[in-house]
């Protein structure tokens, strides 16, 4: 028992040290700018003395934070929701329907799994800007809807579902789409959650693509905006931290509400092989 308690105490202390940068950010966001840097080298960094929300007000005064936030929310919601639909359709067609070319398409999906986004970012940039397509929300959504990893995750999950469920539905009189929506989807919540979370974790933080694609504030999402805000003179760490604290709120809320699903989602995506 004593051993157990000391382990928990030890782990809690480790966790607190580990999360020091987060604390630095949150507490720093509440302090006058000048004190953030000055106190960073001492314990005072973690003391929110004289807390004020001025920095938060300053962020909105200096940049259109709400626009970045809306851009990020809109881009990610669209990628996740469209992605769930398109990729689960594809995974289902590959796992359960019989059609000519099925094996070839499956091979293509698995081959494309190997290509990291970074390898194609530059040619994709030129391909799309040659069409005059850049600096809007759609160009940050449409290219990422179809996703080989998501298709593969759906495919493996559907493959493992008991086939009799669909057969029963077909015999009971449901067509392909009806079977999918009334029988398959309600019994596949884990894979939808996994794909949604893995997708969100990647695109919520995406930096390279908006760096290439956006030129103004119009469609700029948060990860790029924070990096640019950091280089926007004058350098005011309180403002930067207020920006940072605000930008993690949406995913943090999701994480707190759906914590179990986050951990499980990452784990299943991890041990899929």
């Amino acid at each position, binding site marked *: 028992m004593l051993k*157990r308690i000391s382990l928990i105490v030890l*782990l*809690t202390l480790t966790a607190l040290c580990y999360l020091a*940068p987060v604390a*630095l950010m949150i507490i720093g966001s509440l302090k006058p700018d000048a004190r953030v*840097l*000055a*106190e*960073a*080298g*001492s314990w005072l960094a973690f003391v929110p003395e004289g807390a004020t929300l001025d920095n938060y007000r300053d962020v909105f005064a200096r940049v259109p934070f709400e626009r970045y936030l809306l851009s990020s929310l809109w881009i990610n919601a669209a990628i996740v929701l469209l992605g769930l639909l*398109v990729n689960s*359709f*594809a995974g*289902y*067609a590959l796992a*359960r*329907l*019989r*059609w*000519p070319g099925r094996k070839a*398409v499956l091979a293509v999906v698995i081959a*494309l799994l*190997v*290509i990291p986004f*970074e390898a*194609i970012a*530059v*040619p*994709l940039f*030129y391909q799309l800007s040659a069409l005059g397509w850049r600096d809007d929300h759609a160009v940050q959504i*449409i*290219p990422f*809807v*179809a996703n*080989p990893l998501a*298709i593969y995750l759906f495919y493996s999950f559907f493959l493992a579902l008991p086939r009799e469920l669909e*057969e029963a539905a077909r015999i009971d009189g449901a*067509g*392909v*789409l009806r079977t999918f929506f009334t029988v398959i989807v309600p019994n596949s919540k884990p894979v939808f959650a996994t794909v949604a979370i893995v997708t969100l974790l990647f695109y919520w*933080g995406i*930096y390279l693509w908006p760096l*290439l694609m956006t030129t103004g504030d119009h469609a700029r999402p948060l*990860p*790029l905006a*924070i*990096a640019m805000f*950091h280089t926007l003179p004058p350098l005011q760490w309180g403002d*930067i931290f207020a920006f*940072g604290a605000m*930008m*993690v709120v949406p995913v943090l809320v999701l994480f707190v509400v759906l*914590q179990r699903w*986050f*951990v499980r989602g990452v*784990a299943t995506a*991890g*041990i899929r*092989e």
Partner: protein
Amino acid sequence: MAWGSSDSRAAGVLIAPALAGLILFIALPFVLAVGMSFTNLRLGSPLPLEFTGLRQYARVFADVSVQRAFLNNAVFALVVVPVQTALALLLALALNRRVRGMVVLRALFFLPVIFPMSLVAVVWILILAPGPEGMMNSLLSLLSFGHWQPRDFLHDAMWALPAIMLTSIWQGVGFQMVVLLAGLQAIPAQLYEAAAVDGAARWRQFRHVTLPQLRNPLIFVVVVTTILSFRVFDQVRIMTRGGPNDATTTAIFETVRSAFDRAQLAKAAAIAVVFFVVVLLLTLMQKRLLRQQPAPGISGTTERPSDATC
């Protein structure tokens, strides 16, 4: 099951949007990258576009910055992969207990994973701030009883890369921990009971039960982290811009720099292709390792009589 042509029609409708997306936004740019790498394509160049064979690759391999970039990626992988994996395993083992409050602790260690790397990089710029009032400097000074000489980590050729590695480990360890934790929880308790009955002590149980059973998650974690080490870009671009003197440049950073700062599209494409080959080799290695020897499991416990269906 087969429903003939109605099945095919439905499949066509279901697969079309995904297939179109995959072809237009992954396959096509990839083919384009390979194609471009065999030309002299350069934006705004007066020279006519021509096929130059492997000349871009020769250039790329001779380019000191690119050499340095791949070297940095390799060093990054050689340090980050073992350190991060070891830390993640340690955390996973410590947190793999059925105790109240463990869920909260796990969530805390996972927390940085949901932070965008660009935000993490910005926060760590302050932590790594130069001078004695920098947090990292003052921490090291405290730990060395004042013997530490404060440095400007991110502008120091020797310390910039390690600083970026540390940032990356901090952000990524939670991800690995969760994967390994899932692996640990999948180990059947009977194996430990059997080992205990056979007289194996703690360390031997770890050595002969835990590690072999964790084989596949460990391979996954190691390979994925290695691949991520070659994909590093955000932190470099934000924290050091590849400097000082290419000390922290990476393959992707060089790709972007060639394409956008110097308009050398063909060269950027060639670097991207080399980068892709590295990732491909790592992936193939993983497949091979995983195939070689599946983790030994329990057999026979869940088997049903074979005569059930006809």
